[in-house]
């Protein structure tokens, strides 16, 4: 299995629902808690696994705003795992999920240097590196209803801009939708082979209209005629 996410940039409205659902689930999840620094103070910040950035393409008035959620890409060739000196970072053979063993991590930040996507964040309180687990503690929890065994970001996304599934299965929804919509991985030139795929904004639908109709254009009330229409 190669589990990962598809993120649909065409419909993501940038609402941050996935980010907070992630924070919420993982705060009390297997690698929680996730520290919040200066939560009531001048410059609040904290540990998040999923962050939404917002970009603008092109220039006014042809500009388009693109909302861009990012979390761990669970790369095929995950340098964050290769560079880890302690073996805390690992990629699961059975499903490709990249995890950090909190009991082994020494907090050297080196894996975060190797990650091009900013997926890893150090928790200063525990001194360990933390990151998206694809909600590994949800997706394998057999006490949950089957439809609930999904990452919390996917479950919550109001715009259904997030899909979870197995990219090794060519018939899975994530594989199909990636093929059909021309999904892409980020920064392919670095060769990390990210598992997560992004679907580009769709092309604008074209609707044919005729500005000069055959019957001509009405200029005054006199040109309209009553029709016999019964209520």
């Amino acid at each position, binding site marked *: 299995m190669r589990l990962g996410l598809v993120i649909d940039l065409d419909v993501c409205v940038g609402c941050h629902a996935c980010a907070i659902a992630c924070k919420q689930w993982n705060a009390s999840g297997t690698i929680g808690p996730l520290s919040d620094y200066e939560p009531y103070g001048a410059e609040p910040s904290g540990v998040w696994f999923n962050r939404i950035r917002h970009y603008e393409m092109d220039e006014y008035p042809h500009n388009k705003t693109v909302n861009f959620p990012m979390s761990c890409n669970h790369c095929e060739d995950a340098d964050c795992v290769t560079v880890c*000196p302690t*073996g805390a970072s690992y990629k699961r053979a059975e499903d490709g999920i990249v995890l950090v063993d909190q009991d082994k991590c020494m907090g050297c*930040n080196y894996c*975060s240097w190797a*990650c091009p996507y*900013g997926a890893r964040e150090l928790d200063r309180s525990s*001194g360990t590196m933390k990151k998206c687990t694809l909600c590994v503690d949800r997706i394998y929890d057999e006490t949950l209803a089957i439809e609930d065994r999904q990452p919390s970001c996917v479950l919550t996304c109001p715009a259904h801009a997030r899909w979870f599934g197995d990219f090794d299965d060519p018939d899975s929804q994530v594989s199909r939708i990636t093929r059909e919509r021309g999904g892409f991985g980020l*920064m392919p030139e670095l060769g990390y082979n990210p598992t997560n795929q992004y679907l580009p904004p769709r092309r604008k639908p074209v609707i044919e209209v005729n500005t000069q109709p055959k019957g001509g254009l009405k200029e005054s009330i006199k040109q309209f005629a009553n029709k016999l229409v019964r209520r």
Partner: protein
Amino acid sequence: MHPAFSVIFFTVASGAGFGLFSLLFIADTFKLGGGFSADQLVAGGLMSVALIIFGLLSSTFHLANPKNAWRAFSRFRTSWLSREGVFAVAFMPLALIYLASIMFDAPLWLRESTGLLAAVLAWITVFSTGMIYACLKTIRQWNTPLVPANYLALGYSSGSLLLLLGAVIAGLDTTPYIAMSALIVSIAAVLKAIYYFWIRDPGLSPTINTATGLTRAKVKLLDTGHTHGTFLTQEFGYQLARSQASLLKILVFVIGFGLPGLMLVWVFTAQGGQALALVAAVAGLLGAAMERWLFFAEARHVVNLYHGAQRC
């Protein structure tokens, strides 16, 4: 990249330590300038070991969870950071046996073989340190063979200047030491110049377009999704003004290479001059520290593309 003091101190100190040790071994083997006495060798060796240990200790300061530091030896097969640790630790007993062999006048084969092995390990360790950075595809300024070359050259150049200082203090014939220093410092300066020249051109590096996959138009950051800093901005967000970088580069060359070079000439002509050798050694270390600071400060991690940088 955020220039962390602990890492700068560590790489400069341990580089100098390993360099000093290796060159000390060469000086001992070939009895350069008449050769150091046993006591002098041991003192120099201990000094290099102290620099290394000091550096290693300092490097643990940047660990957020140092209680797991011992685990860092476990991924020798894949991680340069792990390798650096393993080589550094393997170096230690050999270096100490070598020094003990000198002190207790052990058989030459023991002294020479442990010394040679330790010197080789020292070289490999510094190389590994360089590779920690050079293997990262995420940082264009680091992802080059010039980086381990630079690490080696600078480590050995500061080591050679320390050794020269030792030779001056010990009253040896300084000519071979001056020659050695001059050679290594020149190589280091040339390599550093090549490096600075090389990183000026971004080439086909990732851009905000490839980072976002939005390749059909100009892309600009609108909002990062957080008002204040995050781990990512703290760790990777450091940005150095171009003018400041240029100034620092000049200083690296003037202090790190020019000044020691001048001192070498002076020491050579003045014959002696402990103060001059001291200035050369201190300038070399200072230059190395500045170089190292710049090495971090100038490095732009590709994650900055997601925070609005157009190209890294």
